[in-house]
């Protein structure tokens, strides 16, 4: 009798439990990209691109993917999602979202409240990209399709490409989490812009202070330098710099280089007067990709170019640091260094106010290691 009842208990628990937390793939509506904006009333507006399958012919035929764009508003992110769920047939499933687009206005406020739900829910997609967009994020999502590429795919591909060229940092929802809570480190995100009816473009990076977008950006001309200073060089780093302003032919004024190797030395020191000095030495190994003036066979010319490049790049790095200090964006994590090695120096002080006053000293050393297959 005891055996039988325990057996039926087991059977019932198998039959009656489980299953309810099933999330069938075929019932879910997969969200590929979402944008977040603030409305005039201060509510959060979520716009999602949902991937829909259109079958060519029933059964066979290649399925065609189409985006369905749905917006919802609410006081919190969850509320706006609930509204979308009311509009949408099937289950709203943002757990494979590939990209989150933050509208400029929203990013200028605290962005943590947006990400709270993403960190709290175990099923959410932590590997998705986060980008900041000029204007409203929903405008970009609503473009639906760029050429033959669907919008979310297009943004992701753009950002990935830019990452490869060291134009923007490789950040995901997960990687910015620690930075958001770290008072000694700030982050910067890819910054994109809708440039036309049918095109979007990576403009550079958006600088954040703590959890807020500062409104300051670095263009793609300067952002590689920031990434180099941050020791985050990706596979390719290509810069076009003006080295011969005196030349008449415009194309001869410029040189295009690829940075093949990067060694960064960052030294933080505090002097007697409690003044903080940061010394950054960048040792770059450079390949010359394009130099229309073409006098590279002479060692003298190479030497001259080396000196010139070092000069230009040093001034560029100084400019980037100035911009960072201006935006109060501690992207290089100087605060963290200080907290670790010189905790007395910032004790009781307001780090936010101290940061712009730091004395930065940057030096770029260039070593030309290649000029291509012709001299």
């Amino acid at each position: 009798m005891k055996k039988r009842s325990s057996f039926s208990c087991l059977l019932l628990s198998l039959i009656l439990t489980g299953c309810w937390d099933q999330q069938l793939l075929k019932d879910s509506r997969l969200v590929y990209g979402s944008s977040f904006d603030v409305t005039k009333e201060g509510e959060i507006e979520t716009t999602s691109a949902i991937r829909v399958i259109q079958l060519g012919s029933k059964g066979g035929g290649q399925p065609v993917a189409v985006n369905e764009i749905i917006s919802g508003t609410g006081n919190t992110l969850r509320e706006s999602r609930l509204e979308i769920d009311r509009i949408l047939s099937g289950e709203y499933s943002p757990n494979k979202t590939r990209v989150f687009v933050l509208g400029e206005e929203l990013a200028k406020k605290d962005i943590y409240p947006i990400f709270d739900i993403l960190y709290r829910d175990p099923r959410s997609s932590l590997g998705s990209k986060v980008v900041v967009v000029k204007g409203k994020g929903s405008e970009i999502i609503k473009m639906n399709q760029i050429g033959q590429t669907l919008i979310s795919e297009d943004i992701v591909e753009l950002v990935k490409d830019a990452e490869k060229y060291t134009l923007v940092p490789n950040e995901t929802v997960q990687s910015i989490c620690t930075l958001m809570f770290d008072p000694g480190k700030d982050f910067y995100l890819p910054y994109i812009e809708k440039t036309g009816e049918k095109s979007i473009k990576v403009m550079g990076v958006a600088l954040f202070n703590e959890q807020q977008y500062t409104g300051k950006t670095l263009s793609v001309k300067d952002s590689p330098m920031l990434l180099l200073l941050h020791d985050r060089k990706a596979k390719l780093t290509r810069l076009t710099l003006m080295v011969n302003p005196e030349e008449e032919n415009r194309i001869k004024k410029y040189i295009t280089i690829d940075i093949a190797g990067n060694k960064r030395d960052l030294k933080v020191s505090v002097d007697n007067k409690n003044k903080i000095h940061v010394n950054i030495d960048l040792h770059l190994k450079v390949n010359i990709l394009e130099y229309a003036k073409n006098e590279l066979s002479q060692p003298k010319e190479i030497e001259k170019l080396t000196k010139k490049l070092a000069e230009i790049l040093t001034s560029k790095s100084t400019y980037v640091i100035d911009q960072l200090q201006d935006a109060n964006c501690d992207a290089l994590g100087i605060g963290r260094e200080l907290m670790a090695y010189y905790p007395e120096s910032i004790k009781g002080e307001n780090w936010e106010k101290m940061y712009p006053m730091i004395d930065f000293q940057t030096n770029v050393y260039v070593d030309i290691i290649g000029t291509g297959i012709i001299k």
Partner: protein
Amino acid sequence: MWGLFSKKNQNNRPSYQVQSLPAIEVSNNMNQNISLIQELLHHTEDLKVKVFQSGQKECSLLYLDSMVDHETMESKVINPLLQSPDGNPLTVINVTELEIVHLLNKAVLGLIEGNAILLREHDSLIYLIMCPFSSPRSIKEPISEQVIRGSHEGFIEDLNTNIFLVRKQIKNPNLTVQYMTIGESTKTKVAILHIENLANEEIVKEVKKRISYIHSDYIQAPGHLEEFIEDNPFSPFPQLLNTERPDRVASQLMDGRVAVLVDGSPSVLVMPVSFFSFYQTPDDYNTRWYIGSFFRFLRFISFIITISLPAVYIAVVSFHYEIIPIDLLFSLKSSLEYVPFPPIIEAMMMQVTLELLREASIRLPSPIAQTIGVVGGLVIGTAVVEANLVSNTMIIVVAVTAISSFVVPVSEMGTSVRLLGFPLMIASATFGFIGISFVFMVILIHLCKLETFGSPYFAPFAPLRIRDLQDTIVRLPLWLMNKRSREPKPKKLQKEYDSRGWKKDEE
């Protein structure tokens, strides 16, 4: 509850069993003896009685027409008896086995085993003359266990031939054969083979003890025997190795295991075996060691795929689709879009269809079995997807599962593992990955706990014996495997040494 079915009825034997024959002394009246024998055999019509004169005495020769070899009987028994002047059967009959019995029931038992019996006038004894008729089929490679390289011999239905095949491989006086007879009304002969001084005698004793306990009317095949002597009849895993290959039996004997041969069946039981014995084939040793190792590893992967792939797929599409890469996810989703069933029903449907196809193709004669391939491959495979009953991916999953279950060298193990997939599928459909891990845990606990004939089934993993791993998921070069596996508890571990000593001598 089981007592209900196993009440012993030993004292009250049914009259159709062999032991029920009454013990009757042979009388000196020949004709009375003949009629009594006919009575005991219920006047069966293939009992022939031949009466003739031999050395002034009337003799009669009785035999079952169907059981004796006529040619031998004529040349070795009847002719000498007719020609000799004194007619003493012990001197004139030159067959290998000649026995004198005094009990009629023994004579009858001799008759049904293929003896002829000779009765002489005024003699109260019976000569049993061995001249059985046999028509063994030729020795062929077993179709269920083919190899690319190596011996192509296979066991047949004749016990003596089978023992000959083993002896041919192991020419060793220590190879010991012990006969037992089981089956109360069929009298099936069973041979127990082991190598004395190598096999653990505890295990040999245990095998004999278990076989001696069998009280069954009818033992047809080793399958019967297996169910009576295996340790855990409720386990899904086969605990005795079934093989039709003499080379395999020989190598197992040389590892210190015991083989049981049953007359009338080409399958031989080997015990005690571990889980990994079922994943070894003679091919592994016939090819170079890293090829052998690669296939071992492949089979190990096939085990994991067979047992878990459908379950993992179900869990992924119904609980955890986040883990699929996004590009794959989209094509998965598009294949699932118009399927009306939950994944578990889909999987069950396809698995059952597959089992049906497999079963049908075994039963059908081979010319028709090919149509099954067409029906299975084209009709089921394509049409089911066209009709949106099952998704494309599920077909792939089930097909891969089936193929990897067929990789197992012993088909019984392959089927067992495939069937084990069903509880896993149900668990994954109810609890996702958690369910899968629970069922896996139960299976693992069971495997660790299982013992066959006193040796651990999941060795060398549980208990962990690092050295014995040499011949499980990899096969090391033979000159490195110089010790026997400890799992059948052999008396000597060393089996090889210094076979590549020439290399050292050269230097």
